């Protein structure tokens, strides 16, 4: 129910969200009425086969795509009620992104890459880089702050990307296949880092993945297929938000 999104438990709430691309004979329905929510203090996994609509759904949640129909609330706001500029500012303040291919700027150092969201928000460069360097140190990359992405391993690059997603303290973090380009050991380390640093009672984390080896990190797993959520499974892992834990008792498999 979309009404629940106005409470404090739900970071994201979707009801009957549809998205289609093209028109006429070339029309493709990527989402066919998605009901989905993500809660504060939880690591919510969105899983499913390639082409099932996971990326489309998180793009809509992140305000990067418009939905065709349905109800959506993100952090208590309806993105489609915001103007283009307000949506960008909302994203800059409240969202953190972790991409499959890291998308680090190759010409910037690790610390400068982490500082980008702060720079975009108008924080002075020196101050932004200092905050970024401190965060990298907390993530165990204190010796690599001045390194360029090309000189970092895949695991290190993804840790830099996590730092970039965290540095401006967003309330929602969206991760797209964060372990896809990593071996199991590094993937496991990245998810552990994400679970230990990103999740807090005031923040929700949505992870799109089809790497079943890291599913145990999730508080909840929503399975998608053919543009719909077909199943939501709760995990034994404890949520950081008491409210979210309480809410889980009402969770039902669909």
């Amino acid at each position, binding site marked *: 129910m979309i009404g629940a999104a106005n409470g404090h438990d739900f970071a994201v709430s979707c009801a009957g969200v549809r998205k289609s691309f093209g028109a006429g004979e070339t029309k493709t329905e990527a989402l066919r009425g998605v009901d989905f929510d993500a809660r504060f203090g939880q690591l919510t996994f969105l899983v499913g086969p390639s082409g099932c609509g996971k990326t489309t759904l998180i793009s809509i949640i992140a305000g990067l*795509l418009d939905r065709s129909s349905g109800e959506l609330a993100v952090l208590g706001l309806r993105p489609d009620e915001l103007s283009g500029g307000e949506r960008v500012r909302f994203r800059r303040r409240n969202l953190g992104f972790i*991409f499959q291919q890291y998308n680090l700027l190759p010409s910037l150092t690790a610390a400068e890459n982490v500082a980008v969201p702060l720079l975009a928000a108008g924080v002075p460069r020196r101050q932004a880089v200092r905050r970024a360097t401190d965060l990298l140190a907390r993530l165990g990359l204190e010796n690599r702050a001045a390194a360029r992405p090309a000189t970092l391993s895949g695991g290190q690059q993804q840790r830099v990307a996590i730092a970039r997603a965290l540095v401006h303290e967003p309330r929602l973090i969206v991760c797209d296949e964060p372990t896809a380009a990593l071996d199991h050991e590094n993937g496991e380390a990245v998810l552990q880092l994400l679970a230990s640093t990103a999740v807090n009672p005031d923040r929700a984390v949505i992870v799109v993945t089809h790497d079943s080896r890291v599913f145990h990190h999730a508080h909840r797993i929503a399975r998608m297929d053919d543009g719909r959520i077909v199943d939501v499974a709760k995990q034994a892992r404890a949520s950081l938000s008491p409210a979210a834990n309480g809410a889980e008792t009402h969770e039902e498999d669909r």
Partner: protein
Amino acid sequence: MNFVALRMLTGDRAKYFGLVFAIAFCTFLLENQTTIFASILKRTASQILDVTDAEVWVMDQKTEYWEQTKALKDTDLTRVRGVPGVLWAVRLFKGNPVARTRSGKFAVSFLIGLDDATLAGAPRKMLLGSWERLREPDSVIIDEAGYVLLYPGEPLELGRTLEMNDHLVTIVGISDASAPFVSLPVMHARYSKAIDFLGRERTQLSFVIARPEPGVTPAALTERIQATTGLKARTTGEFMWDCVRYYLRNTGIPVNFGITIAVALIVGAVVGGQTFYLFTIENLKQFGALKAIGVTNPRLIGMILLQAFSAGILGFALGTGMAATFFEITSHMLATRGIALLWQCVALTGAAILGVVIVASILSIRRVLVLEPAAVFR
């Protein structure tokens, strides 16, 4: 975000230097070719501009440029002198005698005959000797390039003799006359001697040069002379442009240089513009990530403009430096003396480069603005 934009630009050194050098090379070619073109055309009026004493030139009605003269009647000089507002008017002769050295080397020359009494129009830039020595019998002043042409490899010295139309003439001065359009020696002699050095014809008066009285403008005086005498009168500037226009209309020079300039512009625009556009295309993923993170479109536009203008300004400065160095080196060579980088050519090239940068920026900005930030997830 400015430093992010500059780091993105300079991050890939090979592409960055390729972009800057494409613009620099285009700048160099444009400035080089336009300057040479303008300077060569200016040479068609070198001997007019070298006469700094007079401001008005009087000639036959049908005269179109310096090389084309039809002798005036001797009485025309008196008629010009009679026009109100003329401070003074003297005759000037122009001919092309053959000058031969003792060793047998010879060259067709520009011989300018100056009024015997005043020597008005004598070269003021002398490298050796003095223009007053033209009062000596059978004397000429020759320009440095002409001297080197007739006496290759020999030091500049006065007192050497030349044979012109069975007259033995002595070099009493070496001038720094502006290079003529055709690389011939430029000689100055007294009017009465110059006509002997060429061979007498029935009429000899090529031009009357005059100076207006104080308070009378050269342009006003030319109108009065034309109205009074029926002769053609031009100011020095007008006569120079007559020569330039004549060569533009009647020679292949503008076509030849025009093609080179067009090629330079096209190559510069295509290579420089395309390199920058491709640079943006290759960075679309990065721009997409920045968009997703929350960098606004105006900020992205600012970043692209900063990148384009940084590369454009650096390439333009580098190219202008290359062109200035080129002309500094060639200005010491006799054949290319007097050809210096013209500020007008630098300004024109700057405008062309600015156009290329603006077009490349607009194309790049368009690609970034239509970019869906969701593309970063694909």
